[in-house]
């Protein structure tokens, strides 16, 4: 992108003034802040904490699955762990991490002084901690003998099981409501910021790809989160107010819940991934020292994926008994998503082609992302096939597939971004040595954890069951060992970020030699109030 500034922003007055003029200090600063950088930091910190909370839950699950038989926990508790793990990782780790990126980066990258609606931004963040509390509180309450624990239906909350479940379902419903409102507030803010606050001269087709990815995500959130909110509201009414949306007794239909849920749930996959797809070209271009290849193609691919993502939802429940024409439609519609996705892969690889590539940590994560997310895409094609899906549905094959998509695609993508922008945010360099160690441990142990699960699924091991047949023992043991290495490797990441923020080597304004874009023209760290005079984009 040829976005050269012709005027230098007058940010000197605020330079180094990290507390503004009449900013409260201490905790109150963070509670009342409307600064996009503060809010971005809070989102990212919250995401990191919840990443470890969700990780601990699933490590307990992996311990239980280390051997056949029931060793550690009651099946009910196992069911609660897997469902809450998913909700925490999706809504409280990945989504806030992406929103943290958006808060920090979009104003810097488009030359805006802040987000368009700063107060709304603050509300959006502060809805998250209560939501996380609602999700996890039932675990604590059950320790004191109150209730029977958290949501035990899996994260999909399928009726009629969720109509009959304990009060953990109610807690989850209200948590989903709060998380949904938070996401919607964030989305409104991002859309308004991108539409109304771009630097003069920055046309939509000069918008950084990261902002484009987020723009599509924001529209998907606005289109689908209200549908999820509606579905869980109906669920709540069925549970407590005698309605029969999903209960066949009064003329409802449990399958309707699956339609509503996945009308949100499938776009949600792209909601999680589009911000990452947006940041990848920046990272790859930086470390290949070449401009982004196929900018327009990538923008149109984002749009195509955004549109297609809302018309393919039923492939998540091919086995409920749909008419054949519907099966065939959903199969081909799903498979057609691989076309724009292939365009993205092609552009990423073409950006690297004949580049002067260096392998700093963000680039390692980007490359790991491309390879492993590629596996997710290919196994997704297998699952999209109606005939094959009849066998793989609800097996560990699905679990392995979506962890390749959401851990290797989502989490490793987020880590790419963190390592890439950390010098910008903190003004300091992280330890490259620890970063590389973190990458290799993560990449290897990730495959050790999830590759065996493909084979378990092919061999017929069902997901969401705390016990299994003897022939699955070896692969499960390997998977558990991998999960522990994977989990503990992330402590290196947390340590590295902490050390960097506390006092790494000073980072220059343009932390990476090959980087381009407006954010690199600000100092590292950028002043508390940046781009108060908007730059002119050529």
């Amino acid at each position, binding site marked *: 992108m040829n976005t050269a500034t012709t005027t230098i922003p007058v940010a000197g007055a605020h330079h180094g003034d990290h507390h503004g003029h009449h900013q409260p200090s201490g905790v109150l600063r963070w509670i009342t802040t409307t600064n996009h950088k503060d809010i971005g930091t809070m989102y990212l910190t919250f995401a990191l904490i919840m990443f470890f909370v969700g990780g601990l839950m699933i490590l307990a699950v992996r311990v239980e699955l280390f051997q056949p038989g029931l060793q550690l926990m009651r099946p009910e508790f196992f069911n609660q762990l897997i469902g809450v793990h998913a909700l925490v990782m999706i809504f409280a780790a990945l989504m806030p991490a992406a929103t943290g990126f958006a808060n920090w980066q979009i104003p810097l990258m488009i030359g805006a002084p802040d987000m*368009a609606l700063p107060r709304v931004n603050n509300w959006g963040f502060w809805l998250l901690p209560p939501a996380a509390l609602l999700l996890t509180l039932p675990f604590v309450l059950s320790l004191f003998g109150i209730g029977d624990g958290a949501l035990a239906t899996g994260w999909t909350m399928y009726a009629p099981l969720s109509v009959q479940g304990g009060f953990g379902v109610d807690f989850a419903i209200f948590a989903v409501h709060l998380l949904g409102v938070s996401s*919607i507030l964030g989305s409104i803010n991002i*859309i308004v910021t991108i539409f109304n606050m771009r630097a003069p001269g920055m046309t939509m087709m000069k918008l950084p790809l990261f902002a484009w990815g987020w723009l599509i995500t924001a529209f998907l959130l*606005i289109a689908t989160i209200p549908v999820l909110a509606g*579905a869980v509201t109906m669920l709540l009414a069925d*549970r407590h107010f005698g309605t029969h949306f999903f209960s066949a*007794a*009064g003329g409802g239909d449990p399958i309707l819940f699956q*339609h509503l849920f996945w009308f949100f749930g499938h776009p949600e996959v792209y909601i999680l991934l589009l911000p990452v797809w947006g940041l990848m070209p920046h990272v790859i271009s930086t470390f290949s020292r070449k401009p982004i290849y196929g900018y327009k193609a990538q923008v149109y691919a984002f749009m195509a994926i955004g549109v297609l993502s809302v018309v393919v939802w039923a492939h998540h429940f091919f086995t409920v008994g749909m*008419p054949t024409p519907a099966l065939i439609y959903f199969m081909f519609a799903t498979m057609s998503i691989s076309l724009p996705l292939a365009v993205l892969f092609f552009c990423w690889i073409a950006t690297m082609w004949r580049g002067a590539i260096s392998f700093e940590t963000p680039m390692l994560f980007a490359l790991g992302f491309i390879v492993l997310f590629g596996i997710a895409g290919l196994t997704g094609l297998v699952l999209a096939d109606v005939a094959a899906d009849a066998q793989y549905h609800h097996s560990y094959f699905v679990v392995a597939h979506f962890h390749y998509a959401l851990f290797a695609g989502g989490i490793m993508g987020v880590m790419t971004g963190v390592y890439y922008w950390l010098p910008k945010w903190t003004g300091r360099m992280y330890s490259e040595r620890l970063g590389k160690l973190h990458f290799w441990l993560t990449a290897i142990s990730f495959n050790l954890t999830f590759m065996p699960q493909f084979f378990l699924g092919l061999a017929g091991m069902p997901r969401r069951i705390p016990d299994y047949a003897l022939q699955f023992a070896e692969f499960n043991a390997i998977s558990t060992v991998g999960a522990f290495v994977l989990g503990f490797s992330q402590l290196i990441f947390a340590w590295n970020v902490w050390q960097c923020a506390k006092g790494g080597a000073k980072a220059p304004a343009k932390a990476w030699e090959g980087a381009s874009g407006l954010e690199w023209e600000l100092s590292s760290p950028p002043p508390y109030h940046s781009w108060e005079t908007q730059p002119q984009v050529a």
Partner: protein
Amino acid sequence: MDARHLPLVKRLLWLIAGAFAFAFAMVPLYNVLCEVTGLNGKTAGPGGFSIGGLIGDPAAPPSPIDHTRTVTVEFTGTVMPGLTWEMRPLTFSLDTHPGEMQMVSYLVRNTSDKPTLAQAIPSVTPGEAAQSFHKIECFCFSQQALAPGESREMPLTFIVNPDIDKSIRHITLSYAFFSIDGRRLASAATSEAKP
């Protein structure tokens, strides 16, 4: 809020309201879709309940019996949580020619010590057969009341329409008996789970 953002924010809020309304609009839309396509064993019926309600048209002229084909119809039934009844079909399975009228019964007993009101909700598998399965008379058309310990044979008269797809040779008719005493399903299920 900066006033220049207001128009865009308003438009986005309308979009959100529209998406929320869409979720609720799906409820009747989905019903219509199922009635049109026979999805989930549903067929359209005149008035009353229509979910899985296989209501035939008694006024229609009798269709000729297709003696060249035989369809096996199997009967099953479940009593849903919250209702202490027992039910079983007195005929488990029968072979019929399309167009032939058949009559079978279920034996239903109230095993509780309270008079109870309940209704049976039918469902036909495969879904494609649902529109060709006509019930002339059925205990599922109305609510059934049973005194404590009372048992009753509940009849069902049906015709398999001769227009049924040639590939369908087996039809399963399933009933789920639901309590309609106004209690919430959730609380009923919880009490059921704790014997």
